[in-house]
């Protein structure tokens, strides 16, 4: 056990935090908590432990919450970074219903975090930078005025420079964009190729909002004619042309001449794609592609060859006279002489497509040239603080979400708790259910016999009449914890085409909801959800307008999946 001061205190603390009966005795619980918090004799390790324990506490009223926050305020100013971060995390978790308190706390912790980012200890610096990135996901303007602290210096190790570049990319706003871009431009000519490429990608990221300035910088970089720079710039151009159609013109003007400086697979693919899709605006596109075709025998990367096939065919459809001959040669080579089966198959496919007719080929190959809506979807990625509050001050931000997901999978199911995306509080603007949960809900067992029709509308009176006339076909209890969030539930049910006729407001006891759905044969499923005051079980009663056991079973399983998903999110 960590050294918490004295045996009695430890005993009391253990009792208070583990025993639900003591938790019910409000006064006693509160006094224990206060005594624990006031223990000033604790050293920084004890304090960090206490703050960790307190994460499990749920204050019962708003005033109790603010009482505790006041007592803990001094910990936020401690000189030990572990204590400060622990206190911040506790504040964020306790105040999950008060976003303005959360923002306040994040303001207060700005100072210590920035100090840690410039600390002598590289490792501390790195951990702090990861947490800064985490915060920027929810509050992008939080560190904008301190952008200078994130400029890289030559002596820093590579991994810190990469993090700083990412941070710079994320904290850009109207006031600092000029200086940040200038700084990033300086990094693009750095001696280290990796770092230069990272800087260019960051500029590409900023280009989605500040397109003109970034396009200018990227075009200048092409003029340097350095291989590692040119390939990344062309890849960035490809992404930008897809997301921001307004820069296509500038991209097309900058492209001629690049092909001499690209040797790697990724760069070539990007260049070929651009020439194929926007070829009609680039005068010498057919000649560049012809060069590639001449050398296709010595081309080592099959991915490049596949891209080449598609691009030449696209260009042929828009500039037939110039490309006919070389398309023929390319197809001949791919079908007759190519050893890689994937490339050969694609060549064959395109050949047969052409045999089927030009208009068919156009229909299939002439896809839209850009998709700006994709950019908007990505921009909406500003996540609420509560989604990552549990991960703050743990190893999760240090690894990054992607790596942590792979680690968690290796570690097995027991550790699943904090790693699931914690979406307990949805943004009040009512946006979509995050992707992960949507997938889970839609992964429903393909019930075969059950197809709920979308846009099924049933009026309240009709529902009531039908409800009263039918008998309960199936009743079930479902384990449940905590309160229900009606909006979440309603949206989730809508995804699977179950309409909500009526739902109690959150927190009313007992909590009830009435749902209806109709399958393609016209059979109605009416459901009542009931949550008892003890809040440990949800009772589901289903009535079916036509007695069919199989469809009933399928419907129950659909409902279970949805409710299971929602229940999982909160635990």
């Amino acid at each position, binding site marked *: *056990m*960590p*050294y918490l001061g004295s045996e009695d205190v430890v005993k009391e603390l253990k009792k208070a935090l583990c025993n639900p009966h003591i938790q019910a005795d409000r006064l006693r619980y509160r006094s224990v908590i206060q005594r624990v918090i006031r223990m000033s004799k604790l*050293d*920084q*390790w004890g304090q*960090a432990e206490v703050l960790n324990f307190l994460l499990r506490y749920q204050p019962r009223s708003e005033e109790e919450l603010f009482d505790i926050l006041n007592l803990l305020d001094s910990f936020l*100013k401690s*000189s*030990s*970074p*572990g204590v*400060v*971060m*622990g206190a911040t995390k506790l504040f964020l978790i306790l105040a999950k219903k008060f976003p303005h308190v959360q923002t306040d706390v994040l303001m207060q912790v700005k*100072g210590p975090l920035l*100090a*840690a980012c*410039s600390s*002598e*200890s590289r*490792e*501390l610096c*790195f*951990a*702090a930078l990861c947490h800064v990135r985490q915060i920027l996901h929810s509050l992008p303007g939080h560190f904008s005025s301190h952008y*200078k*602290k994130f*400029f890289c*210096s*030559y*002596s*820093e190790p*590579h*991994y*810190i420079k*990469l*993090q700083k570049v990412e941070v710079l990319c994320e904290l850009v706003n109207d006031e600092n964009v000029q*200086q940040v871009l200038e*700084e990033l431009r*300086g990094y693009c*000519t*750095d*001696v280290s190729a*990796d770092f230069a490429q*990272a800087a260019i990608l960051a500029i590409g990221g900023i280009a989605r909002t500040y397109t003109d300035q970034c396009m200018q910088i990227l075009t200048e970089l092409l003029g*340097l*004619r*350095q291989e590692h720079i040119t390939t990344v710039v062309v890849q960035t151009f490809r992404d930008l042309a897809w997301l921001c159609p307004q820069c296509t013109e500038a991209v097309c003007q900058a492209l001629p001449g690049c092909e001499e400086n690209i040797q790697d697979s990724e760069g070539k693919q990007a260049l070929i794609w651009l020439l194929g899709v926007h070829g009609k605006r680039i005068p010498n596109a057919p000649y560049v592609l012809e060069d590639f075709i001449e050398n296709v025998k010595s081309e080592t990367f099959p991915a490049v060859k596949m891209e080449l096939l598609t691009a030449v065919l696209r260009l042929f459809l828009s500039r037939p006279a110039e490309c006919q001959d070389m398309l023929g040669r390319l197809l001949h080579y791919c079908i007759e002489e190519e050893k890689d089966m994937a490339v050969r198959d694609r060549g064959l496919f395109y050949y047969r497509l052409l045999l089927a007719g030009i208009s068919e080929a156009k229909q299939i190959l002439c896809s839209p040239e850009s998709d700006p809506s994709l950019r908007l979807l990505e921009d909406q990625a500003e996540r609420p603080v509560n989604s990552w509050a549990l991960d703050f*001050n*743990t*190893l*999760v931000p*240090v*690894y990054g979400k992607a*790596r942590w997901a792979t*680690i968690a999978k*290796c*570690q097995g199911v027991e550790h699943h708790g*904090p790693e699931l995306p914690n979406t307990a509080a949805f943004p009040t603007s009512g946006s979509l259910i995050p992707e992960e949960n949507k997938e889970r809900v839609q992964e429903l067992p393909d019930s075969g016999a059950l197809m709920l029709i979308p846009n099924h509308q049933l009026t309240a009176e009709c529902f009531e009449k039908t409800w009263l006339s039918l008998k309960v076909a199936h009743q079930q209890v479902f384990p449940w914890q905590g309160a229900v969030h009606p909006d979440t539930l309603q949206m989730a049910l809508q995804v699977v085409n179950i309409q909500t006729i009526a739902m109690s407001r959150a927190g009313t006891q007992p909590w009830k909801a009435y749902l209806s759905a109709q399958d393609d044969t016209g059979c109605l499923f009416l459901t009542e959800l009931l949550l008892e005051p003890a809040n440990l079980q949800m009772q589901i009663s289903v009535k079916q307008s036509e007695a069919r056991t199989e469809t009933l079973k399928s419907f129950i399983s659909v409902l279970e999946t949805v409710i299971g998903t929602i229940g999982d999110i909160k635990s």
Partner: protein
Amino acid sequence: MISQFFILSSKGDPLIYKDFRGDSGGRDVAELFYRKLTGLPGDESPVVMHHDDRHFIHIRHSGLYLVATTSENISPFSLLELLSRLATLLGDYCGSLGEATISRNVALVYELLDEVLDYGYVQTTSTEVLRNFIQTEAVVSKPFSLFDLSSVGLFGAETQQSKVAPSSAASRPVLSSRSDQSQKNEVFLDVVERLSVLIASNGSLLKVDVQGEIRLKSFLPSGSEMRIGLTEEFCVGKSELRGYGPGIRVDEVSFHSSVYLDEFESHRILRLQPPQGELTVMRYQLSDDLPSPLPFRLFPSVQWDRGSGRLQVYLKLRCDLPPKSQALNVRLHLPLPRGVVSLSQELSSPEQKAELGEGALHWDLPRVQGGSQLSGLFQMDVPGLPGPPGQGPSASAPLGLAFRPCGNANPHKWVRHLSHSDAYVIRI
């Protein structure tokens, strides 16, 4: 909490290995760590690594790797703080932290680890509490004595014996033999500043950042009260004004938890009862608004003749420090394009040195007096390479060393002012 803790040398040889929980599964965890560290791809951070449901967190200190493993998802800040604190503690007990000192004091280190961590949980890292439990004594390489000083002449002729202590004076073990305590009533106070400066190619100042620390290394018996007075004109924050002049201003200040701040507001005095050993009393930060001019200014001129591939760089370095101080070990690092072949140089004073490192030119100046100006002309052959040179030279220099004593005989106090540059970049 922590499952294992080990210390590796810079080459990966295990010096210390302590298993707290016995869950290593029979594998050589230290070996695993070192292999993973050296085999890591370039863009992944080595600070926290994962292998086989175990997390490895480490810090590098004085060339050694201090590594802790854990299988739980705990706070990285706490763990890194613990490792730093352990490094300081081991330094306090053994004199300094290094491969040699650790190898000499293995028993002491294990005893310390036993007391600090119990089953992987931190019990205490306070030197007060630990004193009572540690029995082993530290082994030092040679006994230190102030009488050795007479043969040392630093900073010129006038060195009186009691006035100057060599810079290694503070690096002897703090808590060693209890018998000769009478000799050891000394306190070393270091004001260490790290300066981070970025100057653009047109000479304008892009960024300046100073991180300062007041570090105390106390050999006094613990419990004795100490008062440190800062100048009365010390102001915190941009709006505060004290005294009659511009004063000394910092942006933010934070103190160690054991410092009493009651007299700080009125008289700028810090009162504390320091334990033996090293302690960071105060940390401060200052950015964008330095009261004194920057210590170095560089006037470069670059001529590149692409035809013959000859690059000529003329650098004039001006040091703007006050004349009494000097900068030691200044090294200018000028990154060059790849393929630089030969170097010919003309330097303004014989003790300087310049050589071609990997991809860069290093110009070493062992000592630069305040107010002086030094220049160097370098000619290099760069056969046919396109593209301009990258960023300009960056100077790394500890500046302004003066080991000044203050106060009288007993106890001795030594105050030292050290600024060293974290990253001083001047762009051409």
